[in-house]
C-alpha cells in the first residue's frame, strides 16, 4: 500500500520529519568535518555557540535572517503567481541604490525615522523597477522569466559597479562606495529588544529593518491568502487556463506579482546598507538573493515558514563564521556545504523518511 496519502499528525509532519532531515544534513556535514580532521561535535557546538550563545551572536544571526526574510518573501510572492524569480539578487542590489540615494539626500536634514519610510519606498521602487523588464517580457512576450532574471542579475551588477566606480564614489577614495551616511541615514540597532530578553547586542548590526521584515511578512501573508489580488495570483500560479476563464488578466497579474517581488527584494537593502554599513558598497547583497530561494522553498513559501527558515539560515551564516574563525582548518565555505545539505535533505529529500514514519506511526497506533 502506498504511504503517500496516509495522514500523519502535525507534530510529525511539521516537527519530527524536518528535525530528522536537519539531523541527517548535519550528520553528513559532520562527516565532512571529520574528513578534514576536525571534531564534528566541536564544530557543532561552535556553530550553536557562535549563533546563539551570546547576545551578539544572536544579533548577528537575526541580522542575516532579516535579509533572508526579505529575499525569501520576494521569491515566495513570485512563486505563488507561478513565477520563478531568480532575480532577487539583482533586485536587492538595485534596491540598495534606491535606499542609498534617499539616505544621501535626506541624512543631513531629517532624523532616521523620517528617512526610513522614504528609504523603504525608494528601495522598493528601485527593486521593483529592476523586476519590471523581466516581468514585462514574461507578460507580453512570453520570455522565460528564469532566464531574463538571471540576465538582469548580471546587468544589475554591471550597472551598479559602473555607478559606484564612476558616479557615487567619494573622489580620492579607493573603495567604490558612497560616503558614509550621517545619523539621519542610519537605522538604529535593536539593542533595546535584546535587552528585553536580558541579552546584550554588542556590535551586532541587528537593526530596525528586522521589524520591517516582520511587517512585510505579515503583509505578504495578508496579500496571498486574504486579498482578491492574492487569490488571483494564486489562481494564475496553479492554472493559467482557469485564470483566463475567471477573467484574471494574465499580463497585469504577472506584472504586479513581479513588481511586488522585486520591491520586497529591494527592501532587503535597508538591512545591510542603512542598518549595518551605513553606505552603499559593491556586492553588498552577497548572495542573499539566492539564499532567498532556499529560504522560500524550505519555508513552504509561507511567511511564517520563511521567517523560521530565514533564522535557520541566519544561524548557519553566523555559526559558520564562528566555526571558520575558531577552526582555521575549516574554511568559511563549510557554510555552503551545510547549506547545500540542509536544502537537499530538508527540501528535495523532505519525503525520504515519510514512509518509514508512516510505518512506525501505524505500528505505534496499532500497539
Amino acid at each position, binding site marked *: *500500500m*502506498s*504511504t*503517500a*496519502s*496516509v*495522514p500523519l499528525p502535525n507534530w510529525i509532519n511539521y516537527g519530527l520529519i524536518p528535525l530528522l532531515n536537519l539531523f541527517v544534513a548535519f550528520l553528513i556535514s559532520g562527516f565532512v568535518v571529520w574528513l578534514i580532521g576536525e571534531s564534528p561535535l566541536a564544530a557543532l557546538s561552535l556553530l550553536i555557540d557562535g549563533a546563539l550563545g551570546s547576545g551578539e551572536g544572536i544579533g548577528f544571526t537575526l541580522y542575516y535572517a532579516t535579509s533572508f526574510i526579505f529575499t525569501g518573501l520576494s521569491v515566495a510572492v513570485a512563486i505563488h503567481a507561478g513565477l520563478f524569480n531568480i532575480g532577487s539578487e539583482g533586485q536587492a542590489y538595485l534596491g540598495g541604490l534606491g535606499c542609498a540615494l534617499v539616505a544621501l539626500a535626506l541624512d543631513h536634514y531629517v532624523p532616521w525615522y523620517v528617512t526610513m519610510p522614504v528609504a523603504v519606498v525608494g528601495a522598493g521602487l528601485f527593486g521593483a523597477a529592476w523586476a519590471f523588464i523581466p516581468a514585462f517580457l514574461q507578460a507580453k512576450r512570453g520570455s522565460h522569466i528564469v532566464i531574463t532574471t538571471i540576465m538582469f542579475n548580471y546587468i544589475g551588477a554591471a550597472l551598479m559597479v559602473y555607478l559606484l566606480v564612476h558616479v557615487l564614489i567619494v573622489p580620492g577614495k579607493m573603495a567604490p562606495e558612497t560616503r558614509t551616511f550621517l545619523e539621519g541615514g542610519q537605522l538604529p540597532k535593536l539593542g533595546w529588544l535584546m535587552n528585553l530578553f536580558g541579552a546584550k547586542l554588542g556590535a551586532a548590526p541587528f537593526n530596525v529593518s528586522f521589524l520591517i521584515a516582520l511587517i512585510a511578512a505579515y503583509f505578504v501573508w*495578508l496579500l496571498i491568502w*486574504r*486579498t*482578491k*489580488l492574492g*487569490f*488571483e495570483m*494564486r*489562481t494564475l500560479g*496553479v*492554472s493559467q*487556463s*482557469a485564470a*483566463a*476563464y*475567471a*477573467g*484574471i*488578466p494574465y499580463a497585469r497579474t504577472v506584472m504586479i506579482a513581479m513588481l511586488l517581488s522585486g520591491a520586497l527584494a529591494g527592501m532587503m537593502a535597508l538591512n545591510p546598507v542603512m542598518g549595518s554599513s551605513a553606505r552603499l558598497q559593491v556586492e553588498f547583497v552577497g548572495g542573499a538573493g539566492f539564499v532567498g530561494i532556499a529560504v522560500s522553498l524550505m519555508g513552504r513559501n509561507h511567511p511564517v515558514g520563511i521567517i523560521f527558515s530565514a533564522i535557520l539560515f541566519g544561524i548557519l551564516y553566523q555559526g559558520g563564521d564562528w566555526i571558520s574563525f575558531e577552526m582555521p582548518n575549516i574554511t568559511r565555505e563549510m557554510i555552503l556545504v551545510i547549506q547545500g545539505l540542509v536544502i537537499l535533505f530538508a527540501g528535495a529529500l523532505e519525503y525520504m523518511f515519510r514512509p518509514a514514519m508512516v510505518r512506525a506511526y501505524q505500528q505505534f497506533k496499532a500497539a
Partner: protein
Amino acid sequence: MAELLRHTPFSYLEPAVTDTPAIELVGIDKKFGAVHANKDINLTVTKGTIHGIIGENGAGKSTLMSIIYGFYHADSGEIRVNGNPVTVKDSQAAIATGIGMVHQHFMLVDNFTVLENIMLGAEGGALLAKGVSSARAELRRLEKDYGLEVNPDALIEELPVGLQQRVEILKAMYRGAEILILDEPTGVLTPAEADHLFKILRVLRDQGKTVILITHKLREIMAITDTVSVMRRGEMVATRKTSETTVEELAELMVGRRVLLRVQKGEANPGKVILSVRSLTVKDNRGVIMVDNVSFDVRAGEIVGIAGVAGNGQSELLEAIAGIRKPHSGEIFLDGQTIDKADPARLRELGLAHIPEDRHHMGLVLKFEEYENSVLGYHRNPGYSKGPLLDLDAIRKDAMEKIEKYDIRPPNPRLKTANFSGGNQQKIVVAREIERDPTALIIGQPTRGVDIGAIEFIHRRIIEMRDQGKAILLVSVELDEIRALSDRILVMFAGHVVGEKTPDAGEQTLGLMMAGIAA
C-alpha cells in the same frame, strides 16, 4: 510472448464463446491511503465476450482495471489469466500475458506521431530504423482488419480525440492483446464514432478476444455487452447477463436508489432576445478559422443546443462568447449591449454565466479548497470582498449553502477540490455559475464523465433555469443530452452552423448533419 502473439496469423480463430474464463479476480483489495478503492473484489470474465463494468464516479472501476493491467498493485488478492494465477508486476508483464488497456485519460505522447506512440515500448530493437518499417506494415494490417484507419505520420496533438482513441486501441492490438480493457472510451466520441468503436469491438469479440468495457452510459451497456458487472463504493455489487437485465435495474444497482432517467420538462416560453451572435468568426491558437461567420440568437426562457462532433468549432464559439478568446470578426450582444470586446470579468458583471467544457483546466483550480472554487471568477463581487480583502466568512458561508443545496459530497468546503469526484466537482461549477442568478448561461459538456445521479440533478437545474426565464446556450457532444434538454438545436460542422432542428428530429437526421452530409 508479446512478440509471438503479434505474429499469430489473423486467421487464427477460437470458438466465439467458450466457458473458459479469460480473467478471474479473487479477493482483490486496494487502498489509497484512507480511501478503500477496491474491497474484496471477485470477478470472472468469460473468454470471447464483451463484459461491461458500470458504477458511479469513484466506485473503483479504473482502479480495478489498473490492477489487472499491472499499473497499480493490489494490496491482496489474486489474478488468474486463462485459469493460471499470474503476478502482474508491471504493465510489461500484463502486456506479455496478452492484456491491453485503453486508459480513461489517454496515455499518448502528444508531440509524437501515431507511429511513434504505437512503437513506444515495442520498438523491436535498440535502433528505431529497423522497427519502423515492420511497425508500418503491421499497422497497415491492423487497420485493414479492424477498420482502424489513422495516418501513422500524424501528430497526436493534431488528431481529434476520436482518432486519438483509435491510436490507443491500435497500441493495444499492436502488442498482441487478447484481452482489451477500455476505460470510459465513449466519453469523448460522437454517436457515429461510438458506433464505429462498437463495431470494432464486436469484430474483436468475434475473433475470440475478450473485451472489458467501462462506461457510465447504460444505453451502451445494453447495446453491446454480453455481461455486465456493477460496482458501488469499491464493491462489486452484482453481475448480470445483459439480456436478462434492464436499464432501470442497473441504474438502481449503481446508485443504490431509484433514479429518474428521463428529463421532465414543460413547454418553453421564449421571451426577448438576450444573447445574439452576428457573423462571428473565431480563430484558434494556430490561426486556423474554427468558427466561420456564425449567427444565431438565444431568447430568454429557452435552451438552444449546439450539436456537433467535437472539434467543429463549438469550443472556440463558447470561448469567444465567454470572452476568453478574442473573436476575429463579428459581433456578440448581451441584452442589447455589444460584448465582443469584454473580458470574462466584465461579462460576469453583465450577467453572463459560463459552465466550461473542461472543469479540470478551466472551471476549477484543483489545488484550491472547495470554497475558493465556489467564488472563482466572482471573487471581486461586493458580497465576497471588503475593500482589497476577501470576506472569507461570507465566502465560506455561501459555499456551505451551495454544498447543501446541490448535495455536494463530502460536504466540506475546506477539502481540496481534487479530492472530490468528477460529478461533485461538476456540481461545484454548476452551483457557482447558476447561483449568481445570471441573465444568460452558456454551458459546455455539462455532464461529461459525470455519473447518472449527478446527471439527473444537473439536468433538472438547467431546466429550472430555463423556466426562470434565463437564456441558455448548451454545447454537448452527447446527442442524447442535447435532444433531452434543448428547445432548438443548431448543428455545427466545420465551423458553420449547418442547420437548425427541433428536438424531435431523429437521431439519424442530426447524425448526418453532424457529419456534414445533410443540412
